[in-house]
């Protein structure tokens, strides 16, 4: 980590970059990411119109695009690409737990005692 000490405001809160922080390039990049997000949105919407053979595929495509979009937001807007180790640790753990929660709840639901059925069907 570079903790060069600058008093310049331009450096405040953004210590991982160096003096020659390239604002123009960064601004361009942010707009580009914004555009990519918009395009991603449009593709997701359009993808719905192309009929996929199965629900699973439709869902996967939509979530795949959403994942890419969320990667863009995290990586660029939230500066995770150049963030500190502590933040990574926290976020990786959290996301792992969140996924674990969803996955375990779902697998519990999908693994009942064989013969279990919705009561609404009544007859044994």
């Amino acid at each position, binding site marked *: 980590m570079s*903790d060069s000490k600058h008093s310049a405001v331009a*450096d*405040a809160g953004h210590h991982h970059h160096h003096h020659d922080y390239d604002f123009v390039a960064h*601004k361009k990049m942010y707009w580009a990411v914004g555009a990519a997000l918009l395009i991603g*949105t449009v593709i997701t919407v359009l993808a*719905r119109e192309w009929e996929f053979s199965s629900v699973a595929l439709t869902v996967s495509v939509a979530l795949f695009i959403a994942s890419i979009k969320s990667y863009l937001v995290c990586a660029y*807007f*939230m500066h995770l690409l150049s963030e500190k180790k502590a933040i990574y640790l926290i976020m990786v753990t959290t996301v792992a737990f969140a996924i674990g929660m969803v996955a375990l709840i779902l697998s519990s639901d999908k693994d009942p005692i064989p013969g279990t059925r919705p009561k609404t069907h009544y007859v044994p």
Partner: protein
Amino acid sequence: MEIPYAVKPRPDTGLYNAKVGIWLFLASEVMLFGAFFSTYILLRVQAPHGFWPDVALGWPHGLLNIPIGTFNTAVLITSSVTVVMAWIALKQNQFARFRKFMAVTVLCALGFLAIKTFEYREKFGHYVIQLNDGSRITGHLNVNGSSPLLWTLKDVEAAKLEALKVEVDIPNKFRFPVGHPIPEDIHKAHQAGEHHREREIKVSDISSLKAFIPSTHPFFAIYFTMTFLHGLHVFGGAMVLFYFGFIGSGMWKTDPERFTNRIEVGGLFWHFVDLVWIFLFPVVYLL
């Protein structure tokens, strides 16, 4: 007494306090929305096969207004770009530009909320009607030219109507294959490519009438819960950004570094709100 590293990063972690704080907070938010998404998924996978409203608890599709939702997504994405531009402007020492971007951000947020409110309203005037023969239709009511909100059968009775005029929805392809209980003529109308169809329904034929509100169906329950909470986040974020950008921006003069940090932290929250929507939008509107 000064709290250390409130502004300047701590050398070994490379972070200032508020940044650690906001990320921890976002971590808890991930778990919060994670739980809501779990709920969504569970409700949905255990819903009976077949399509709402013919199978009462089948999952509804295509009820939300996709063009509007898409537009709203764009609004939110724009605000995410402008908030980070605002921060860059501060770093470049361009306070006026910062203000401009903040204004756009807050306006986008308010725009988002306004559109969302409009969508909610539309749902409150949208009904699912069960007829005595067991078939169900959905659509808007037309009572003397206006479309009443949040009616129940009691309101219909109170209005002393013999028959209800209903703008019946024609199911789109995401609602198919439909089961038999959709009335025959509506099915035909769909095949003829119509989109709306007004029908008169005798009140005595109606066994139940419910607006598209949370208690009507788990889909609406989770849709309203998640979008409402997301909306609260948008609202809270907008308030904070508005405060930083306009009311509390005097700090720029007294303590510019801390001020810039605040904007960064506020921006992180704002991006997170955007992030939630990135998943929420396809999940509730599209799938």
